[in-house]
Structure formats: structure tokens, C-alpha cells
């Protein structure tokens, strides 16, 4: 619940008390909105359930951190996709192209900054990684803008054509990546500051995973703040519910959509860069590979819901790591099973988006 004075727009009532101060005279205080927290509780529940199965607490901590890191990276990549779907009913199968471009651009920049990347100084390492990630985001965002204009715009409202055309866009983009960067995979080494692990007692936590968790959480918090506390965020949330009414209030929702598309693409680029550093290799197929997980995540979360996407990503990351440890052969199958279970429970996903 946000008090009246916390919107980014200036306070609603510059003079006098905020409206809810008068509540007492008007009648009983309102019932608090009941937030649906059951899906949120699934994450700790899953972690607790995994503890006895994994056995060793040290392995459990390592796996949990790995799962959260993976989940948050997927969240970063998936959030833009779920928002564009919610806002304009566009499902972009070509989203993986932005991830791949982000990975390649970041890898190129980092390889070009070889000495800084190899240096033992944390600051020089970061000075190489930061511009690489920035470049990845900018180029993915630009590509997203072009993609929206050329590929997606002509097929608004036509699901079948959308799926076909955006899939075609993915094929072409993947091939162009091979034209520009060559068909072979690029090997990347994490800078020294991001290699190795923190050792606490007998628990080992990889440094890079901590960074991935931090970046993912920052993206999530910034996104929540932007959606919850800014006017643009208000427009996006309202548009997800009923874009026609947003138009009727006098806002050009198309511009908001392009903005969200570009931001979503840039985030995919960021996710691609993080993923590349995580895997330490980059191939043109990276986008298509991750897309499978992303689809599972946004289906689990409820198409269009950022909160659902967040919970879904954490569940998928955790399940992949726990099962990968317990029964490595069925790791990806386990995510399909997770998706099936969630859909049996809630056919529209964890947080179905209210629709007109």
C-alpha cells in the first residue's frame, strides 16, 4: 500500500491532510487488500523440502545459491518478454535473439579488454565487465527497437503470424550472428575477481553466483519500483489490464509499448551477458537454448505477470539445480513436470493477469 505522498508525481494534495486521514469519520477502516502470497511461499517451501533430500547442509546451501543465481538470470531475461505479452498481447519467439546478441557483444568487448580482464585488480576487472554489459544492453535494446518496428508491428493481434514471423526473425538473427562472429563458439574466461568461491566453514559459494543474485535482485527491485511508483509504471500496469481504456484516457499506448519492448530487449541483453560469463562460452544457439527455460518460467508465472515471472524463475532455477544434483539425467524434464504441476493447480499460471 502506498501512501498518497509517495507517488513520483508531486503530492496529490499539497494543502491539507492526505485523504485517508479522514477515514475515521467516513466509516470503518477498509479491509486490507489480501495479497496472494501462496505462490511466493512455494520458493521457501521448495528449498526446505530439498534439504532432507540433498542431505548435506553444505551442498544444500551451494545448490540453493546456484539455483537462485540461475533463477534470477532467467528472470532478467524473461521479464521483458512477459511484459510485452501482457501489454500488447505479443509473444515474441525471437526474444532469444536479444539474449544471444547481448552475449556476443559482451564477450567481444571483454575479449577486447583482455589485459583488464586478466588483471588481479577488482577495479580493472569491473572496468572491463561494466562497459561490456552496457554495450550488450544498448545493442540488444537497439535491435529490439528495430525488431518491433520491422517484424512485430505489422502482425499485432494475429497470434499465428506473430509466432511464425518472430520465429523467422530468430532464425535470421541467429544466422546473422554467425555471419558476424563466425560459426564457432567463443570461449570466455571470467576475470580473476569473479572466479573462485567464498568459503564459509564447509560451505562454498561461487563468487560469480553472488554477483548474479545481486544483479538479478537489483533488476527486480528497480523494476518493481518503476512499475509501482512512477507514472510510466502506472501506465504499463494499467495497459496490461486494459490497453483500450488507457488510450481512452488520452495516452498513446503504442509508445509505451515500444519503450517496454526496448527495455525488455536490453534486459535480455543484460541477461545474455550474465549468462555468457556464467557459462564461459558463447554460441549462436544460446538464445534458443535459454528460451525453453524462459517459456517455462513465464507460463508458470502467468503470462504478463512480472511477479509471477520472478517466482517462476526462482522455482525453475532451484528445481533445475536440486534435480541436477539428485538425478542429473532428468534435470530439464523436471522443469516440464514442475510446469505441469503448476498448471494443474492454476491453469493460467501462478499469478493470472486480470483481463478486460
Amino acid at each position, binding site marked *: *500500500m*502506498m*501512501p*498518497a505522498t509517495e*507517488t513520483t*508525481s*508531486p*503530492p*496529490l*494534495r*499539497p*494543502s*491539507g491532510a492526505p*485523504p*485517508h486521514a*479522514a*477515514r475515521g469519520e*467516513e*466509516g470503518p477502516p*477498509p*479491509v486490507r*487488500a489480501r495479497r496472494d502470497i501462496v505462490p511466493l511461499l512455494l520458493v521457501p517451501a521448495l528449498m526446505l523440502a530439498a534439504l532432507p533430500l540433498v542431505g548435506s547442509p553444505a551442498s544444500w546451501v551451494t545448490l540453493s545459491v546456484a539455483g537462485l543465481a540461475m533463477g534470477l538470470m532467467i528472470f532478467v531475461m524473461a521479464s521483458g518478454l512477459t511484459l510485452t505479452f501482457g501489454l500488447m498481447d505479443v509473444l515474441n519467439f525471437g526474444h532469444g535473439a536479444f539474449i544471444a546478441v547481448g552475449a556476443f557483444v559482451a564477450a567481444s568487448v571483454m575479449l577486447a579488454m583482455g589485459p583488464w580482464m586478466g588483471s588481479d585488480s577488482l577495479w580493472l576487472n569491473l572496468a572491463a565487465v561494466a562497459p561490456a554489459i552496457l554495450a550488450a544492453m544498448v545493442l540488444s535494446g537497439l535491435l529490439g527497437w528495430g525488431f518491433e518496428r520491422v517484424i512485430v508491428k505489422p502482425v499485432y493481434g494475429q497470434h499465428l503470424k506473430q509466432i511464425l514471423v518472430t520465429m523467422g526473425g530468430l532464425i535470421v538473427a541467429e544466422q546473422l550472428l554467425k555471419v558476424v562472429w563466425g560459426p564457432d563458439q567463443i570461449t570466455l574466461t571470467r576475470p580473476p575477481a569473479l572466479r573462485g568461491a567464498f568459503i564459509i566453514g564447509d560451505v562454498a559459494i561461487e563468487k560469480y553466483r553472488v554477483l548474479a543474485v545481486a544483479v538479478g535482485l537489483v533488476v527486480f527491485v528497480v523494476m518493481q519500483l518503476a512499475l509501482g511508483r512512477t*507514472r510510466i509504471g*502506472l*501506465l504499463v*500496469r*494499467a495497459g496490461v*489490464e*486494459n490497453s*483500450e*481504456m*488507457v*488510450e*481512452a*484516457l*488520452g*495516452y*498513446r*499506448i503504442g509508445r509505451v509499448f515500444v519503450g517496454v519492448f526496448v527495455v525488455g530487449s536490453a534486459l535480455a541483453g543484460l541477461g545474455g551477458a550474465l549468462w555468457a560469463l556464467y557459462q564461459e562460452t558463447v554460441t549462436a544457439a544460446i538464445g534458443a537454448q535459454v528460451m525453453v527455460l524462459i517459456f517455462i518460467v513465464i507460463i508458470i508465472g502467468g503470462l504478463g505477470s512480472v511477479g509471477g515471472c520472478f517466482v517462476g524463475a526462482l522455482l525453475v532455477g532451484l528445481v533445475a539445480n536440486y534435480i541436477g544434483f539428485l538425478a542429473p539425467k532428468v534435470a530439464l524434464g523436471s522443469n516440464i513436470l514442475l510446469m505441469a504441476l503448476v498448471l494443474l493447480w492454476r491453469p493460467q499460471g501462478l499469478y493470472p493477469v*486480470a483481463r*478486460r
Partner: protein
Amino acid sequence: MAEALLSLRGVETHIGRYHILHGVELDVPQGGLTMLLGRNGAGKTTTLRTIMGLWRASAGAVRFEGRDITRLATADVARLGIAYVPESMAIFADLTVQENLVLAARSGPPRAERLDRIFARFPALRRFWTLPAGLLSGGQKQMLAVARAIIEPRRLLLIDEPTKGLAPAIIANMIDAFRELKDGDTTLLVVEQNFAFARRLGDTVTVMDDGRTVHHDTMDAFAADQALQQRLLGLSMDTHQ
């Protein structure tokens, strides 16, 4: 009668393969309240949506303050000072009451005196200020929908069936609200099925049937001619008092 703020000439609208409006003629006089009446499926809602640019007229012209707005995008129509309250109310259920109103106030934060007037008229909005609008009752949602349309001064309000499913006390409240608006400088075009309500508020009447406008009149003359009502609407207003 004052000159028309809004006028439709020969408006035809298709939705998909269906031809819904067949040459609608409508004048909404400046400063008055025009009631758009007609049986279910007569094309009243489609007329409002065509004015807003939510459906495209395939022929004819929609003029607002003398300017042709037939081809304008919905957002640009709204920016001319036309507000729309759809029948479904279309409040944003996941947004709070406050957020719904902040969004509706395009040019900046809502003005305190404006808010105070709205709160005086619809106290429930003050009470549930920070609640997601989806939790409001039907009547409260309608209040929010109307409040959203008047959070800033607008030239013309298009309101689709504001009394549908509302309790009599709330309807009385709506009547007062619309009177107050009319006494200000706001012009209203209201689609209505509740004839008692229509009669108490309307200055002029346009009746639609089968996608056409079939009758224009002042409300007083129309209310007096029961045979006409019977023919055009299939029932007399008095039976609905």
C-alpha cells in the same frame, strides 16, 4: 438551443463483417445533457465507441467543436477534452483507487479542490483510497469510473449506462453528480436504459433503432408523448417510474 458541440453526420461503422451503424445523425448541444435511448442492440454503445475512435467509422463524419475528428486516434480524441465511461466501467482492478485517479489526471497531480468535490459526492472513494479498485463494490466502481472522467475539467463526457445494476440511493447520487456537472461547463452524452433516470436528467433526446437515429426531440416533448415512446422504445416511460 445552443450550437452543437459534437455532431455526427451519416456515420457508418462496421465491426468485422457486421455492419452496425447505418448513417447515424446526432447533435449534442453545448452545455446540455443529451440522452441516447433505444432498445438493446440499437447501436448506442457502438456510437459512443465510434466517437472515441475505438471503432473506425467507414463513412460519414464526426465533428467536435467544428473540427473533423473521424480519423483521430483514440488518445488524441481524449486529449481534445472528451472523456469516456464505458458500460463495463473498465476500472483498473489491480491499481488502487488513487492510482486510477492519478492516471486519469493527465496534466499533473489531481487538484485538491477537485478531489474534495469528488470526495464530497462519492465518499467511498476517499475511504478506499489505497485499496485495489478491483475490491470495490459495483456502485463504488461506477463512482470511480465517473470520478476518473471528471478528475480534470473535460468538455464532453460520454457515459454508457451509468445506472446499470445500481441501487436507488446510488442512482440518486449519480443524478446529483450529473446535474452538478451540467451546471458547470460540461456537456454530457449519456446512453441509458433506465427511462426514469433519463427523464429526470435529459435536456434533449435522440432515439436509435437498428443502427440508425430515428428521432430527435427535447426531453420535455418526448416525455409528454406516450404514444411516441411506445412506438420507439416499446414501452412507456411512466410504466418505469
